[in-house]
């Protein structure tokens, strides 16, 4: 069984070039994101995903290679978002 990452509530987005801000209605947190993090979170907003699918989708969106460094960045990002209660991992 694969675990999937979900966002925990509706998100409000703003972006200025490569600089993004997002507000989570559920937690009241405001975050500043880079393009990579924004692409990953937007993907989860549209579609809960496992890590592999999320890495592939965010790499495709940004035109970067889905390599070890990319997966490490996404993994760290998910961990941090989970700590602040913005995403959670559920069994598929």
């Amino acid at each position, binding site marked *: 069984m694969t675990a999937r990452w979900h966002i925990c509530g509706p998100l*409000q987005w703003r972006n200025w070039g490569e*600089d993004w801000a997002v507000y989570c209605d559920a937690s009241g947190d*405001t975050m*500043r994101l880079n393009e990579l993090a924004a692409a990953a979170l937007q993907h989860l907003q549209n579609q809960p995903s496992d890590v592999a699918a999320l890495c592939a989708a965010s790499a495709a969106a940004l035109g970067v290679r889905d390599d070890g460094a990319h997966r490490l960045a996404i993994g760290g990002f998910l961990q941090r978002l989970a700590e602040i209660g913005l995403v959670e991992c559920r069994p598929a």
Partner: protein
Amino acid sequence: MIVADLSPRELGHWLKGPGLGLRTGPFVARINTDIAAVVEGVRSLYADHEVADPCAFADWNVAMVRPWDARRWYRPQALFLFDGWSPFKPLPMSQALPGLEWGLNWAVASHAHQYLMLHAAAVARGGRAAIMPGASGSGKSTLCAALVQRGWRLLSDELAMIEPASGRLVGLSRPVSLKNQSIEVIRRFAPQAFLTEPARDTAKGDVSLMKPPVASVRQARETVPPAWVVAPRFQAGAALDLEPRSPAEMLIDLGFNAFNYSILGEVGFRVLADLVGRCPCYRMTYGSLDAALEAFEELESQAERPTQGAAPEARQKPAPALAVGGQP
């Protein structure tokens, strides 16, 4: 009618009796006091402010009184009351006037949630406002006082209030609170400014209050659109540095800096995102008021040129993967 229209006897009657309704921007504060220094402070600092109709609704009823205990006679104290209740401990009598100002700031910051309130000074000229966020000691009140003494309109030295629906700033035009070395700096910079005698050894050090210019008081109810966000930081001897900041970076800082961002929720995010998206944002390090004022003149003249409103290229650090802001 303005406060200056009242004779000292009439002013004393209202302050010591039914309360003086004082209009500051969109608010009416009904003030009571039996403390002579506060009566004199209201007379001198609020001379140009409108006196509200005695029957008018007051947003807050506040008082600065001498408590009925032994401290009425021995090392007298002054107690701030809000609707008859005291949110603070009594202060030494010598701090009664700044204590009233702090109490009025508290009343606004704790209750006026129809606005997004930033811990920031705000000034305006030519129909454009500059918001200057900063913690205590950043130099925002000193810079605000200097700008106001050079013709900028005072909106507030402490509370920048934004109407969520319009994104416009609402002025308070209350006295500017100057602390410690700033008192002498502004005395030298603007000898014509009226400053109260400093209250010594307050929790914030020595505090003196600067009377707002009459033009600012008369315009207090005119809202103005923000045009710049400039976070000042005084550093003795520093050359002026006006460093552009990215909108998202400033949004996070302003969220931390706001009094009620978490209360307003998504509305607060929208207001701040609109603000930083529309206005160029900077961090200004300054070592002299003259250099800082020149920078403001330059910002103003840039805004008047045809490329008006174009945000400068930020010497921008790349966004971190994730930076969390706002209050929990």
